[in-house]
């Protein structure tokens, strides 16, 4: 991969996984770099003009306001996710229950519950949202607006695994940006999706 494409990839990589924003910034950067080349600059000079890719990505993101999601919308998103888990798991458990012994039913429920707990962790890391959050027009970002890292996604879900979720949730009622304690800790936020900005 050539240096300019690699550079653009590194900028894009920081942005939330929204196709339109990524495409727009990539197209813009390609155009700006090409313009420099046409005026006799080298690729290195063009990239030097653009500066550090992470800083550039954060400067672009600074233009997008982060509107904290209300507690109500977050709660509904949670419930939707929980209903989704039930909708997927209930038929499986029922099937196992009529086919096999009690032990396997317990085992299956255990496995499915772990999967349900892991779902937000993976979905928020890979897609920046969950099905419930998406339905409520919410997304998960770093405080700069950049997409969250895997480590941040893990820390966000720690209260579930540590079984302090309900205490953690109470923080979202009182903190300025409606953050849970583990969201403050992981430096992440739940904000409204870009198309929902006013």
């Amino acid at each position, binding site marked *: 991969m050539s240096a300019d494409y690699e550079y653009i990839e590194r900028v894009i990589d920081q942005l939330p996984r929204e196709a339109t924003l990524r495409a727009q910034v990539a197209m*813009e*950067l390609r155009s700006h770099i*090409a313009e420099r080349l046409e005026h006799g600059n080298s690729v290195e000079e063009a990239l030097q003009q*653009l*500066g550090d890719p992470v*800083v550039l990505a954060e*400067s*672009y993101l*600074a*233009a997008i306001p982060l509107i904290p999601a209300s507690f109500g919308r977050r709660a509904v998103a949670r419930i939707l996710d929980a209903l989704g888990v039930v909708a997927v798991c209930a038929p499986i458990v029922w099937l196992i229950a009529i086919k096999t012994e009690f032990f396997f039913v317990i085992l299956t429920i255990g496995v499915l519950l772990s999967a349900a707990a892991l779902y937000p962790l993976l979905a928020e890391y890979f897609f920046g949202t969950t099905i419930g959050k998406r339905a409520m027009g919410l997304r998960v970002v770093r405080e700069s607006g950049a997409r969250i890292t895997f480590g941040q996604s893990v820390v966000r879900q720690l209260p579930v695994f540590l079984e302090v979720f309900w205490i953690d949730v109470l923080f979202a009622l009182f903190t300025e940006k409606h953050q849970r304690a583990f969201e403050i800790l992981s430096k992440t936020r739940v904000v409204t999706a870009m198309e929902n900005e006013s």
Partner: protein
Amino acid sequence: MAARPADGDDRRGIERELKRGSLELIVLHLLSLGEAYGYEIVTALTERTNGSLEVTDGTLYPVLYRLERAGFVAVRWETPQRGVPRKYYRLTKPGQAELAQLTREWNTFASAMSSLLRQQPERT
């Protein structure tokens, strides 16, 4: 701890902060002179100020993006005869209003600063 006099890096930092704060005004003003694309804006700024105000592409483009999102500039893509598509920026009506507002604020600030800095120590 004693205050450390500003060294080279700090000085450049102060200059950078000053520039960052006024960059939107600079860009809006340059666009009020006519539609332009990114590279033109960067070079026009250097030329019109004899190089005393200079920005890098990486500083300018996010500002243009911010102005675009705020609706102060409108954009259009154009592909020249040969070469890559160019993004042209032009001032909108709200952009003109913003420019007028920022210009007023700047002038007020600048005259207040210069009158402050003109003040001499009082003799005792």
